[in-house]
């Protein structure tokens, strides 16, 4: 069999192939030759064959049959063989093949080889693809090499150690003694990899971090090295564009960042050197900017003094104005990281950031968009929104969905007026209507319902918007819904905000019918349109027959959803005409169920489910409100507005006076009236009142911990503890979780917990987990209380407990005053 061709020959041959098929053919031929050569166990040419195999692997052809051959090469004595063998192992093998374990012994031997390059190869391979078993076996050898004086091996051993630690974190302690002297090296390569090793150890284990901070005095050492680098002047071997070993500088700065985070002493020790680096580094080349960037990140992360922080933000501001796109990108990224902590400082650069929205570079635009959303606040909302809407108009499609969602969120949080809010939404719907996310439509509808006084204006604008073009589905859906609801306002021609347009009922029906017929409308949109037409049958007077006709046509539609709707509506016309007006009433103001906690809780009535009362005693009739007022008077407040306007109040059986009786008769955290008759007037939104558990309310997702819990009540074996949570998005809301436990020998049954707060607060009590407190502290009842404290006053609460214990009914009243300041400030 002729000698296998050399790698270079193979490459030359493959390059002559003109088509993919030709190339494949050549490669297959060569693979066959290589396979037969492997079978012959030919030692001399194995190296060449494996090299060719690796080349073919890079081009994308399967090469797994060479794995064992790599192992044989590694076991050979020649350096050339080992080199290719290890390279093959790194490229072809990984943890998933069992074959790799066979390497362990070879690597072990090579780690103790006399030639440093062979040891280096072994370390390299172990560090690239060593599995956890291999690492466990060979960690000792690596550790030995970490202490050697040969700098070539030492640096490789350091990185290998990093890999070992990543795979087998328990072995971290083993490398600790070897790290003591690592930073005393002169060789920059070793210094660099040692810093990497130390960084890895500190990041992985807080114990290590503490150890390095205190015992090893790592920070002074690093500061010393950094100082030498800066002051040393020109050193030809480490110089990159005029700066001495910038890679090492950047690494040290990163490690300093980890060491200084949340630690005052370390941060103080590095203040000087950071200031020095920040002021002395030359910024004309990329290298200097890289160091400055790292310095800025470090300053922002540690507990630096304010002058230093101002310096850092100014450097970032300078970066933003730099011509180099990379620098600007990097500046935007770091500003995004700091905008949470140093919001005001970043605000100063807002105009530059907004300019970046117009940049041609996609990466920069994305960063600028994210940063702009983070910078929006109540003061700059109008200006920012103008820019963002312009951006939405002109940006690439991949941004539009994110931008639209961001605009909606920002508008919701900071809208200066309802009209502005609706205008903004309209603008987004018309410009990027098809990119709006699906969940935006119900949110928008709910928003429009809530802004009662804007209904006429909204429906008019929506009508005008879809008159011209009804292809953007979300826009059409919202418009159809609004026209269905407020069509009467539309034709009546009343609108305060804008010039009212004259629209006849027929024109409205025309547009809705065209939406129904159009090919561009999706099934969902059609459903919206049909329902809207149906609703108009109660709101329009002259065109009811036309509506009946349309509805009956769709009774035989192919689309099952439409057909079902049409058939039901038909039935409504025929058999249930007396109910039609009641059913097609105006929708009430909708309750908002979002996880970010609305500031006010809206009452529902009618169509939505009545508030459940699980274990509370049923309400003793219509809500008596005056006792609530009396109780709150006792807690020392002012007037309270009536709880529910539509429910008549009845006089209480016992007059005001004794607190116990007051609390006994009324259900303080009582249910809202389950008023069955839907009112034709949309409900007044957001009266402040005490409300019982709408158990569908989910708890806050983003919470901060760290507020100490208190024991609110402890008597007769019953202990009640309060734990607190604050929401990040709404600082005036506190969520209190109460836990009631019972240390006596008998259970407490029918346990009811009630609470009242002063008038400046609002309270919401969710349903408890059960009504039995088991004995001997074997279990607890948990219940959640939400307190809204907009004026940030000191939290006080009066609680009443009723339960049955040892056969007798017990009642107790207590006042809770020991709320920790973090719970209400």
């Amino acid at each position, binding site marked *: 069999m002729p000698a296998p061709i050399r790698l270079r020959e193979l490459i030359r041959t493959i390059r002559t192939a003109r088509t993919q098929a030709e190339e494949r053919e050549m490669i297959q031929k060569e693979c066959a030759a290589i396979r037969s050569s492997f079978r012959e166990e030919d030692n001399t040419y194995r190296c060449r064959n494996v090299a060719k195999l*690796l080349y073919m*692997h890079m081009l994308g052809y399967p090469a797994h049959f060479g794995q064992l051959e790599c192992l044989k090469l590694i076991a050979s004595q020649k350096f050339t063989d080992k080199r290719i063998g290890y390279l093959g192992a790194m490229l072809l093998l990984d943890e998933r093949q069992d074959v790799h374990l066979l390497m362990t012994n070879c690597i072990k031997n090579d780690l103790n080889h006399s030639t440093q390059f062979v040891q280096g190869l072994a370390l390299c391979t172990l560090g690239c693809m060593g599995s956890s078993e291999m690492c466990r076996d060979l960690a000792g050898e690596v550790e030995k090499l970490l202490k050697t004086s040969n700098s070539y091996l030492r640096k*490789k051993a350091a990185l290998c150690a990093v890999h070992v630690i990543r795979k087998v974190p328990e072995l971290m302690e083993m490398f600790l003694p070897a790290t003591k002297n690592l930073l005393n090296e002169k060789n920059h390569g070793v210094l660099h990899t040692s810093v990497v090793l130390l960084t890895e150890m500190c990041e992985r284990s807080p114990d290590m971090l503490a150890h390095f901070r205190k015992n090893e005095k790592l920070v002074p050492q690093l500061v010393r090295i950094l100082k030498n680098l800066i002051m040393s002047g020109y050193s030809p071997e480490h110089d990159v564009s005029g700066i001495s070993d910038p890679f090492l500088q950047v690494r040290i700065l990163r490690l300093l960042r980890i060491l200084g985070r949340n630690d005052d002493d370390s941060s103080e020790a590095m203040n000087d050197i950071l200031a020095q680096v920040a002021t002395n580094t030359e910024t004309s080349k990329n290298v200097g900017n*890289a160091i400055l960037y790292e310095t800025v990140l470090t300053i922002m992360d540690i507990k630096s003094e304010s002058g230093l922080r101002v310096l850092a933000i100014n450097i970032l501001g300078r970066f933003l104005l730099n011509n180099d796109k990379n620098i600007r990108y990097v500046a935007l990224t770091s500003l995004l990281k700091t905008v949470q902590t140093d919001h005001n400082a970043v605000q100063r650069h807002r105009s530059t950031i907004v300019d970046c929205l117009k940049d041609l570079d996609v990466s920069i635009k994305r960063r600028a968009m994210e940063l702009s959303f983070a910078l929006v606040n109540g003061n700059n909302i109008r200006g920012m929104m103008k820019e963002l809407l312009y951006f939405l108009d002109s940006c690439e499609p991949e941004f539009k969905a994110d931008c639209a969602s961001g605009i909606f969120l920002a508008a919701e949080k900071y809208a200066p007026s309802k009209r502005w809010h609706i205008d903004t939404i309209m603008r987004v719907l018309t410009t990027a209507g098809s990119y709006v996310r699906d969940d935006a439509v119900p949110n928008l509808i709910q928003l429009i319902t809530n802004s009662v006084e804007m209904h006429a204006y909204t429906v008019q604008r929506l009508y005008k918007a879809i008159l011209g073009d009804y292809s953007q589905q979300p826009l059409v859906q919202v418009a159809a819904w609004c026209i269905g609801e407020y069509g009467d306002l539309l034709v009546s021609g009343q609108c305060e905000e804008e010039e009212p347009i004259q629209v006849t009922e027929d024109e409205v029906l025309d547009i809705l019918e065209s939406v129904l017929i159009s090919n561009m409308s999706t099934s969902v949109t059609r459903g919206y349109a049909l329902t809207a037409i149906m609703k108009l049958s109660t709101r329009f007077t002259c065109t009811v027959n036309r509506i009946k006709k349309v509805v009956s046509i769709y009774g035989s539609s192919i689309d099952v959803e439409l057909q079902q709707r049409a058939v039901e509506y038909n039935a409504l016309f025929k058999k249930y005409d007396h109910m039609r007006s009641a059913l097609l009433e105006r929708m009430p103001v909708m309750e908002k169920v979002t996880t970010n906690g609305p500031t006010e809780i809206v009452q529902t009535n009618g169509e939505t489910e009545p508030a459940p009362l699980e274990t509370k005693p049923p309400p003793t009739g219509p809500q008596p409100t005056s006792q609530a007022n009396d109780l709150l008077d006792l807690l020392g407040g002012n007037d309270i507005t009536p709880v529910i306007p539509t429910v008549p109040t009845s006089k209480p059986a016992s007059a005001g006076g004794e607190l116990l009786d007051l609390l006994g008769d009324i259900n303080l955290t009582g249910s809202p009236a389950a008023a069955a008759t839907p009112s034709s007037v949309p409900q007044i939104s957001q009266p402040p009142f005490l409300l019982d558990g709408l158990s569908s309310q989910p708890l806050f997702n983003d919470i901060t911990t760290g507020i100490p819990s208190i024991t609110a009540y402890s008597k007769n074996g019953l202990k009640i503890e309060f734990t607190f949570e604050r929401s990040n998005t709404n600082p005036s809301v506190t969520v209190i979780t109460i836990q009631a436990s019972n240390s006596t020998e008998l259970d407490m049954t029918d346990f009811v917990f009630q609470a009242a707060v002063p008038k400046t607060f609002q309270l919401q009590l969710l349903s408890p987990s059960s009504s039995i407190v088991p004995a001997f502290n074997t279990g607890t009842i948990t219940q959640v209380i939400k307190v809204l404290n907009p004026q940030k006053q000191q939290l006080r609460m009066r609680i009443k407990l009723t339960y049955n214990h040892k056969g007798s009914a017990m009642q107790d009243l207590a006042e809770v005053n020991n709320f920790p300041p973090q719970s209400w400030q």
Partner: protein
Amino acid sequence: MIKAILIFNNHGKPRLSKFYQHINEDTQQQIIRETFHLVSKRDENVCNFLEGGLLIGGSDNRLIYRHYATLYFVFCVDSSESELGILDLIQVFVETLDKCFENVCELDLIFHVDKVHNILAEMVMGGMVLETNMNEIVTQIDAQNKLEKSEAGLAGAPARAVSAVKNMNLPEIPRNINIGDISIKVPNLPSFK
């Protein structure tokens, strides 16, 4: 950590691919294609940073690339690496290649893939930067190459002959040897570089 280092040409043909995490071969090829697709769309005067494609692992990963003549050098890194630092690292890598290959061009990379791997192994190990000093790297590579050559035995003879002639300093042979009045001209040998 550096997740992957890719070198491909303007048409997407891979010239070097090294992955520092476990990815199977099909996915590797897909990643190369996807990366080429993302990088080739870029204009000349935009920044050198890109969000990684879906395959290479999501929003934490960034592609940092540099375009030299016909080759794209792409490093896929996660957030623990400094972007500007990686740009410098690419520059150092290319300069090292230049020193090792003498005016490196794409052909050198094509025909000496294994050597490029060796150089890279001296710079980046296990996804972390090992050595950034160009001279140091070149010294070590030279030493290892010498070791290889000394082992090569007979098969290496032509290569050794070539390098021996290369090191012969022909231009210094005097053109004119003057011994009194007799001037003997030495024939003009073609300069063998």
